[in-house]
């Protein structure tokens, strides 16, 4: 039998009684697709070695500047609320992650992904693909222009809707910092109802996924602005080691 939103809300509430720390609980039944797709054995703790102490290198050969503008990829202008999203990628010790790849993808303003599997009967926008790439600057800053995505329905339970979000894929300075996550918008009424967002049972931790409206990023007569800083876990390589190894390489 399909679950109702009330069923899911009860499960979310029950799971919140046993807080699971600042990362998502991978064993989180309210998100139905997770049931058979999470490991049940605890992760095995090791000290990273060799390639695990390094991250792949990306550069201007990989990413063109205009890939950071999701509003200019077609002949016309996409429909919806034009926004700029910016922030800094930092490691767990507050150091900027410079010259590193950030990938983003999202639904259009109507809540529709340009993807065969998205059957939500909302309109596609011929002027919006919803994909961007960029490199962080020397101080870890990333910035892209896009259209604010809409919320969309999914089939986790009856009348399930995802809060509006942008998917982010981020690399750090070592392999262990790899992160794929979702950025949300402030004040979304769907937050309490969404099992993916609520899989992070620590309220302070999940709020780290919400961008802040920033009027200093907003530009006159053009677009509104959001700021979202992305703190990764700590690097396992000290700067001294990296300098030495880089010279030896």
């Amino acid at each position, binding site marked *: 039998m399909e679950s109702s939103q009330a069923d899911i809300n009860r499960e979310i509430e029950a799971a919140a009684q046993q807080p699971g720390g600042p990362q998502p609980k991978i064993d989180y039944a309210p998100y139905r697709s997770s049931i058979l797709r999470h490991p049940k054995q605890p*992760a095995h703790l090791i000290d990273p070695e060799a390639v695990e102490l390094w991250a792949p290198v990306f550069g201007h050969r990989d990413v063109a500047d205009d890939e950071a503008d999701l509003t200019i990829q077609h002949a016309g202008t996409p429909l919806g609320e034009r926004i700029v999203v910016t922030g800094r990628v930092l490691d767990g010790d507050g150091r900027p992650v410079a010259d590193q790849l950030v*990938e983003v993808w999202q639904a259009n303003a109507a809540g529709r992904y340009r993807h065969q599997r998205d059957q939500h009967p909302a309109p596609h926008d011929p002027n919006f693909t919803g994909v961007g790439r960029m490199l962080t600057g020397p101080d870890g800053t990333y910035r892209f222009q896009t259209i604010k995505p809409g919320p969309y329905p999914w089939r986790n339970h009856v009348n399930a809707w995802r809060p509006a979000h942008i*998917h982010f894929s981020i690399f750090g300075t070592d392999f262990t910092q790899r992160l794929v996550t979702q950025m949300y918008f402030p004040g979304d009424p769907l937050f309490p109802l969404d099992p993916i967002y609520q899989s992070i049972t620590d309220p302070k931790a999940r709020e780290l996924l919400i961008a802040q409206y920033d009027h200093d990023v907003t530009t006159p007569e053009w677009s509104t602005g959001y700021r979202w800083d992305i703190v990764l876990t700590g690097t396992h390589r000290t700067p001294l080691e990296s300098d030495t190894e880089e010279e030896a390489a």
Partner: protein
Amino acid sequence: MSAVPGQTVGPFFHLGLEYDGMNELVPPGHPRALRLHGHVYDGAGAPVPDAVIEIWQADPQGHIPRQPGSLRRDGWTFTGWGRAATGPDGHYQFTTLEPGATEPGKAPFFAVTVFARGLLDRLFTRAYLPDDPDLLANDTLLESVAPDRRATLIARRVPDGAVFDIRLQGDDETVFLTYPRLRDAWA
């Protein structure tokens, strides 16, 4: 500082993460190309058709690549990094080179990251090359894993390359890894 939590890659990752040549670290016709491939399975043994696998590896001489170009490959530069999505049958594949030992006496491995719809956070593991039993027997990680689970970390040689299957859950669940600074993020 508190690390930003992960979230699932979702069902529509192809849109944002796929690009031409992403799983070809070397061109398929390369004389030393290795086909590294396998299936991803869920806890019921069903294939997972919407997973993303990333590999990161040393070159055959054991050097860790420091070259850009993984997104726009030139056919000559070995960047050591690639990405593959599973197909409808849960199968993924890479065309790459065999990683070398980064230090004498170390067992060569691929560092592997796993994402999927239904998987709320990424998973890390390693795929070791199976060829040298002495190196594997003395490997720090493998020694620390229960003997009956070690095989989940070792690729199998087959006539067309090396096979590394990933089981997200169940009796033969792959050993997934965590690292000290990730544990800090849980403190």
